[in-house]
């Protein structure tokens, strides 16, 4: 499953270490499959994964993992996979909210403290995996959900910047961040633009403008940015547009206009 997506992204040929991949999920589409493909590839390569789950639970990733041929829970026991489930932490925080100063109560307090606590949690887990294994992918799904928790944009961008600091300070780390964009949502748009400005690769997932189709699930645009190379005409900001079809156990990726029903 993962191979078709990864070859479209070019991750099979390119080393991702030290890079930031932004996945932009436009309203009306689901970009989760990109994350799953990247996780699958990382595990096949023998690397580790640190999953920050805000949108889907760890169980969701485990279920998809079993379809793709790996067992996330076993890998977690082996120390190759770590997960931070913000939803569960939130639940714990709600339960202990009245007990001030307890250890678990990380999501209440000032907005900056919340984000700072999340970052320290991530940092701790990353360092733990990096002791065992390299390379490691830090996967955040999805960053814009923090906005929904009432955390201001400025703090979310701070968290992103700190995660990028880790990218610089911890060798062998790569970063995959998904954000959701709804048209007209100012905050989400600013966050996504801010993320894409610093990303090495942007994968933009959107539904078909014309509606639903049985042959095509949506369109995927891949933009590579090469910071170290000079701005040579088209090369610098290369774009590739694909259509994809999500199936039970695989994703078909093809050029626009070459869906199975047309050929």
């Amino acid at each position, binding site marked *: 499953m993962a191979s078709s997506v990864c070859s479209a992204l070019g991750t099979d040929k390119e080393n991702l270490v030290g890079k930031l991949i932004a996945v932009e999920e436009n309203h009306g589409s689901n970009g989760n499959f990109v994350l799953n493909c990247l996780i699958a590839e990382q595990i096949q390569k023998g690397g580790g994964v640190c999953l920050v789950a805000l949108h889907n639970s760890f169980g969701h990733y485990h279920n998809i993992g079993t379809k793709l041929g790996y067992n996330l829970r076993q890998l977690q026991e082996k120390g190759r996979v770590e997960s931070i489930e913000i939803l569960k932490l939130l639940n714990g925080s709600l339960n202990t909210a009245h007990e001030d100063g307890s250890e678990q109560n990380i999501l209440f307090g000032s907005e900056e403290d919340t984000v700072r606590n999340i970052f320290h949690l991530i940092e701790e887990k990353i360092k733990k995996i990096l002791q065992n294994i390299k390379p490691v992918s830090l996967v955040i799904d999805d960053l814009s959900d923090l906005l929904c928790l009432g955390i201001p944009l400025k703090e979310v*961008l701070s968290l992103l910047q*700190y995660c990028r*600091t880790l990218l610089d300070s911890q060798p062998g780390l790569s970063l995959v961040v998904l954000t959701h964009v709804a048209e007209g949502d100012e905050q989400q748009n600013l966050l996504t*633009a801010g993320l894409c400005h610093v990303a090495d690769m942007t994968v933009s997932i959107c539904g078909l403008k014309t509606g639903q189709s049985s042959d095509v699930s949506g369109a995927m645009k891949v933009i590579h940015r090469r*910071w170290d*190379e000079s*701005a040579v*005409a088209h090369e610098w*900001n290369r774009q590739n547009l694909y259509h994809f079809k999500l199936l039970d156990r695989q994703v078909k990726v093809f050029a626009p206009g070459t869906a199975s029903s047309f050929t």
Partner: protein
Amino acid sequence: MLSSILTGKQKSVLVCIQDSLEQSGFPLLKAFVQHAVDRKENHVHIICYEHPTGKMKNGLKNSGEDHVHFHDCFTDHRGWIESQKKENIKSGVNTRGNSLLSVLQSSLVTSTNDCVVIIDSLMPLIYYNGFTKCYRELHSLLTKSVNGLAVSQVVCLVHKDTLPDAHAALPQLCHLAATIVRVGPFTQSSRGNPIAHIIHKKQGGKVLKRAEYYFIDADNRVKSEDLTVVVPTTTGMNKEMIDDSNLPQNLTTFKLSLGQQEKQARSQLVLPYLRRVNSEKGGEVFYQPDAADDWDEEDPDDDLDI
């Protein structure tokens, strides 16, 4: 124009590069850094807010020289890591002075010459310090000397699409800047190179506007040329077609014009209020004398020899 600003032939106090997701201005900013480094006249302060300093140093020639100073405002920009090390998390975060002025003040470089300040992106600064404070700092940087450092030029990058309240903030920045370079993606006429729209306010008050396309080579050297808009050969025809489409007869479904026969029929129709002139007979005078009329039977002109 772009190269004369880069090389310093055209003096510009504040150069503001505006970019968007379509075309990044980072390579152009790097070219500005390279030119400032190579000039060797002034100390160059490069303040990295958005990227680690390594990203800026990568591919930059002579970046290790004495007059080049990098300031890392990217790593641990809010002091989270530092405060954790001190284990005083609960006592509150000691906010690091990441403002422009404090960064420059903390640098212990003293020189009699002016210095060049290059900021890799104003965005984090605007987010964490607020736009007004950022604007004020830029302004005071340009007018006053900081810690004995006089600033001769500031170059900064702004992302148009991540700026909160861009409709208000961008014009303000443009007002402060002496040169505004708006970077855009390539078009047909730029031969695949990115385009820069430049507005340069000279010290005398003259404002120059240019559109150029530029090319940056591996040594961060910029070549730029004026953008000549390609005029398609069918422009004239297109214009006529556009004018035609606005005429009512092209917009309506009714027939508004007349055919040849209809025109003839119209010309033959005599309308009731028009005077009918019978041209076949000659002129005629009808006269009916009344009772009191003195009717002269004789011809009054009899004696005349006509």
